[in-house]
């Protein structure tokens, strides 16, 4: 019997009406001879009572200064999908179809032990297959699994898979039960050439390769999680992105060798970055390498995430997520590094803080002290163009940069790969940059 995994996102289960539409799709698949296996996200989006962001907010608002324990947070977050799965299964039952809700662990999903960002290590789908054989439609909680530690503790630890985890669950379940295909249902018609919130007439791509969709997702598109694409690619499962609320055929994700030869795929954006540039020109050239090592050691040991890293003889630069800014400031503003018979004093911004001025006065009495100024540009975002066999074209970079320059959109930094080219721009210019690049490149994206 052929099985089909159907994953429904938060908006697809956000109301009774939406859920009914989703259930009818499941029933339709069953009537076509498939054994549907459903994966659901939590109900609704931020602001709605059981959405993941709402649940996070409930924990954080107790005392914003105290971060929730990751283990406890996972227990809390998993409730959103459990509610959703139970209600979905019950809705199917009310429509006359046997259904059974499963937590991630009950579905056999085992993960590593990283709370909040666990990765799936194995799936034992025995209970899912049994439910199917018994004529039930399994409804599985997305986004969660269990970690079975090595300490023989009774019971497994509940873990969540991080953002987009329900897509990952769907692809992994599809692989585990050898599904004919995996369908990701959302509230847009498929993978678009740009964020429809920014470009409202962005066309839907009919076919994309796994590589492309993973790149698009990594660079900010929210329609499909990259880990889902990576699992589907690894296990060679056809993947679809469809709209719960329309009959649009959606987007099919295929292997690169089935790629239709399109050149440019689309434009994405991801935001909330801070760009930082360390000016090492005041440090003797012979000491810069040691100082760089010191800086990266601090960044590493304090878990800072770097984007768009760069390095020149006079300095280093990178972007960090806005969520890590306070940590960065606490670490680097007023930091002192001892280098042979020199001292380097770090300060953030052109005007030193009171703490840095006090340090300067103290240090002036000892060894020669050089200042390492860190220029900080807040509120940045990364705008990217994604394409297939396109990025190596001579002149593409200059074309993009000229377009942005002529529109007076400053480009702070760039990065590139075989599939993409990204520019760091002020967040306030994101929408304009997306429009500009989309109008220039996206028409090539759709057959």
């Amino acid at each position, binding site marked *: 019997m052929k099985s089909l995994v159907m994953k429904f996102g938060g908006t697809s289960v956000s109301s009774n009406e939406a859920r009914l539409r989703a259930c009818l799709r499941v029933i339709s698949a069953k009537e076509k001879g498939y054994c549907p296996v459903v994966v659901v996200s939590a109900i609704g989006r931020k602001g709605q009572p059981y959405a993941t962001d709402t649940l996070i907010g409930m924990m954080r608002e107790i005392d914003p200064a105290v971060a929730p324990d990751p283990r406890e947070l996972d227990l809390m977050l998993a409730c959103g999908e459990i509610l959703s799965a139970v209600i979905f299964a019950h809705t199917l039952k009310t429509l006359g179809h046997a259904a059974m809700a499963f937590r991630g662990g009950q579905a056999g999903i085992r993960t590593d032990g990283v709370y909040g960002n666990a990765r799936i290590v194995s799936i034992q789908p025995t209970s899912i297959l049994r439910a199917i054989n018994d004529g039930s439609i399994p409804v599985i909680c997305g986004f969660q699994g269990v970690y079975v530690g090595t300490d023989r503790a009774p019971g497994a630890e509940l873990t969540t898979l991080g953002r987009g985890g329900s897509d990952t669950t769907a692809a992994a379940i599809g692989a585990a039960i050898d599904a004919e295909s995996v369908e990701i249902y959302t509230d847009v018609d498929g993978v678009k050439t740009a964020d429809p919130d920014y470009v409202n007439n962005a066309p839907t791509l009919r076919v994309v390769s796994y590589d492309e969709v993973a790149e698009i997702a990594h660079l900010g598109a929210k329609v499909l999680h990259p880990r889902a694409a990576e699992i589907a690619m690894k296990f060679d499962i056809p993947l679809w992105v469809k709209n719960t609320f329309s009959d649009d055929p959606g987007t099919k994700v295929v292997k690169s060798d089935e790629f239709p030869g399109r050149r440019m795929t689309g434009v994405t954006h991801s935001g909330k970055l801070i760009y930082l540039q360390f000016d090492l020109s005041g440090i003797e050239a012979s000491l810069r390498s040691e100082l760089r090592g010191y800086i990266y050691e601090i960044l590493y040991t304090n878990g800072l995430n770097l984007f768009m890293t760069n390095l*020149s003889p006079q300095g280093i630069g990178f972007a960090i997520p806005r969520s890590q800014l306070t940590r960065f400031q606490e670490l680097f503003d007023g930091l002192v590094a001892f280098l042979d018979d020199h001292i380097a004093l770090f300060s953030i911004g052109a005007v030193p803080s009171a703490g840095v001025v006090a340090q300067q006065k103290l240090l002036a009495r000892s060894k020669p002290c050089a200042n390492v100024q860190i220029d900080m540009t807040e509120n940045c975002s990364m705008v990217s163009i994604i394409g297939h066999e396109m990025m190596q074209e001579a002149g593409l970079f200059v074309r993009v940069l000229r377009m942005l320059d002529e529109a007076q959109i400053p480009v702070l930094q*760039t990065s590139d790969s075989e599939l993409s080219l990204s520019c760091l721009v002020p967040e306030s210019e994101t929408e304009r940059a997306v429009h500009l690049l989309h109008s220039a490149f996206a028409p090539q994206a759709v057959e």
Partner: protein
Amino acid sequence: MANRQVETEFEKRRGVNKVEMRGNFAQINVYGLTPPVSRSRLSVLDRVAACGVSIDFLKLTSDGLGFCVDQKQVEVLRPALQDFGANVTYLEDRSVVLVHAVNMRDEEGLIARIVSSVLTTGATIDHMGDMHDRLLIVLESKSAENVARVLKATLVGSPI
């Protein structure tokens, strides 16, 4: 319908899973460009594009830019970039060490850890770039092999 994936690894493990090296690159740094620097950078890139040369790892600096090209293209670019009113350095015989790790920008401290490990070897990094799944480090070819070996030994499969 088969239960084919019992106890099979579904996702790549987090952390560094592969280190490889590619040779025959040259690193080109252009600095001291006349303001407005953004326009001057475009002029440099125009000249490079006019030569039909594809560039990798373009990075912007406060007064210029840096990028990598295939080593064979250096002689094509030299005449195009001379008499430009800026300083140009050509670092030939460079290799790129590629360090692969899934979703590395979201793994706390991972990129910094890799760079820190490279610097610990005493190697000088000429240039660097990152993607969501790999870090590219440009080094003199004679030190790249050792760096790749050290990174493989210390980071591949190591927990993060």
